[in-house]
């Protein structure tokens, strides 16, 4: 039998349902894999083997009792450490929350538990999800399983690395400017950003509330869709949650049929700054879509070139406001409270000590953009650009059903290369940011390896808000065609760890 850790979530669920393996066996196989490789990958910030086996035993007991279980019951999952968990520490990758145990579960956490998923542990991330490399974690970087001297993407880099390294078949992530799609792309796996409001933000430690979107990581499109359905849907605890049925993404992933679909190639996402190997794989993917019966046209979205500057005003503005809650008074770190200092002095000392450089940069940038005298020229203008980008999408989606682009302009870069050059780091999210600003659905699916470095390249597929099923349908068609060409998944080409 194939090793359990190489199985997809759908396969594991079927094996467990058929009684050929148990949740405990599956959990143990993944715990063993984590013990064997995570010293080199460092995807996890927290694991609790005994707690994991306890969750698995509970699922096996429910199954033995004849209970009706969900389609992912007993499947292990790695959980991004930005979602609150009652029984595990939650740090958001920050020193300011070191050792914090939240008093409540995030809605996403609660739904994973209700679906019988077995939470293996909490994964590393750029501090407060701010970054594209996971180097901004206060707990050290995570490494890319394809080449451990390179970044696994970010901010959800612990989750992408865990799935790519077969430490977990599934993982959660959050995508504010590309933090699921970019790490999925550079580790050769699937990552989806649902429509904004399609998945709950309750208990997700806030970075930029108008953009933050929980979403799935998996090694196959179908697995991503199964996880998407398991935790999405209306949540009365999140006022921006959409009160509509979850789009039928699992059915779409199974259907994988795109004959007659109209596909738009975004003209603005090419040229300077795009690695040759990324462009080559992307162009081939577009030809593949045509060969599968799609009608491909070029589409212009003239304001997309202003998406990056608009995002780096809007996201920091929201972050400067959201992170004001870390005040050293109610939870988390407190520094310098020796009786001689005022609350305000303690607050400023704690924040200076507890936040890392990227978080400080963004808080200060946001404070600047929102301050009187600059508001209209920066934050106000960025909000108008956001309208224009949304209109560009609306105009494009009158002509085509989906838009495609490379997920990120380059493959995984070496750890350290962009660490002290914020603007270079920000470019990693060039192609993913517009979908966050407009709130639409998007996915990244592997489309090959770049010739110059042998590292994974991702294809991004974007669809209008609430058309999440469409991005899964196209991604599944691409996956099916490429896997038949490659004789298996792209990840099979990754070096053994």
């Amino acid at each position, binding site marked *: 039998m194939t090793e359990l850790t190489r199985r997809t979530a759908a396969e594991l669920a079927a094996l467990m349902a058929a009684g050929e393996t148990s949740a405990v066996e599956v959990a143990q196989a993944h715990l063993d894999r984590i013990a064997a490789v995570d010293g080199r990958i460092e995807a996890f910030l927290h694991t609790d083997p005994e707690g994991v086996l306890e969750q698995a035993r509970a699922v096996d007991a429910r199954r033995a009792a004849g209970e009706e279980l969900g389609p992912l019951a007993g499947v292990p999952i790695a959980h991004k450490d930005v979602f609150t968990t009652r029984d595990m520490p939650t740090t958001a990758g920050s020193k300011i929350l070191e050792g914090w145990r939240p008093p409540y579960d995030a809605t996403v956490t609660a739904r994973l538990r209700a679906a019988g998923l077995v939470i293996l542990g909490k994964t590393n991330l750029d501090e407060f999800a701010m970054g594209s490399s996971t180097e901004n974690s206060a707990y050290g970087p995570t490494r890319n399983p394809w080449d451990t001297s390179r970044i696994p993407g970010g901010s959800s880099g612990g989750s992408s690395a865990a799935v790519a390294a077969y430490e977990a078949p599934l993982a959660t992530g959050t995508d504010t400017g590309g933090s699921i799609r970019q790490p999925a792309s550079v580790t050769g796996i699937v990552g989806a950003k649902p429509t904004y409001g399609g998945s709950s933000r309750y208990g997700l430690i806030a970075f930029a509330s108008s953009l933050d979107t929980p979403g799935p990581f998996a090694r196959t499109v179908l697995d991503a869709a199964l996880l998407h359905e398991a935790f999405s849907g209306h949540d009365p605890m999140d006022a921006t949650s959409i009160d509509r049925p979850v789009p039928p993404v699992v059915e779409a992933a199974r259907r994988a049929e795109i004959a007659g679909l109209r596909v738009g190639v975004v003209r603005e996402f090419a040229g300077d700054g795009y690695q040759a190997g990324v462009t080559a794989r992307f162009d081939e993917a577009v030809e593949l879509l045509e060969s599968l019966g799609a009608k491909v046209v070029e589409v212009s979205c003239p304001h997309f070139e*202003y998406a990056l*500057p608009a995002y780096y005003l809007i996201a920091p503005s929201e972050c400067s406001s959201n992170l004001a809650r870390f005040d050293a008074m109610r*939870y988390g770190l407190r520094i310098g409270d020796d009786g001689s200092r*005022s609350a305000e002095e303690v*607050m*400023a000392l704690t924040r200076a000590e507890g936040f890392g450089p990227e978080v400080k940069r963004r808080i200060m940038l946001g404070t600047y953009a929102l301050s009187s005298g600059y508001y209209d*020229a920066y934050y106000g203008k*960025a909000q108008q650009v956001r309208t224009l980008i949304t209109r560009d999408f609306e105009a494009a989606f009158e002509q085509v059903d989906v838009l495609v682009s490379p997920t990120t302009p380059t493959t995984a870069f070496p750890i350290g290369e962009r660490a002290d050059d914020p603007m270079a780091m920000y470019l990693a999210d060039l192609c993913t940011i517009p979908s966050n600003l407009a709130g*639409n659905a998007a996915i990244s699916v592997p489309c090959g390896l770049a010739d110059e470095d042998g590292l994974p390249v991702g294809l991004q597929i974007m669809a209008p808000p609430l058309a999440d099923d469409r991005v899964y349908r196209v991604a599944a068609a691409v996956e099916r065609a490429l896997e038949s060409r490659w004789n298996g998944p792209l990840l099979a080409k990754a070096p053994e760890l």
Partner: protein
Amino acid sequence: MSAITRDEVAHLARLSRLALGEDELDHLAAQLDVIISAVARVQEVTAEDIPPTSHALPLTNVYRPDEVRPSLSPEEALAGAPAAEDQRFRVPRILGEEA
């Protein structure tokens, strides 16, 4: 010309409640200058009469029924507090000595 002066950066640090050292301020001032110059590109866009978007969803004022529901106990709410006393958060002094 710099987009932002070091004095302005020091002021932003105070507004942000970040007690930064001199070296950190120097480093951040240079980086913020680069970033602000780059993001200022939004000003190139002609956007007169374009309404601002603060949010991707067309939602306004979502309400729920005002019902009494169970919430955290004082012990749970205080479990992560740096300091607590008599079921309350204990904080450093907020007012000056003379107040």
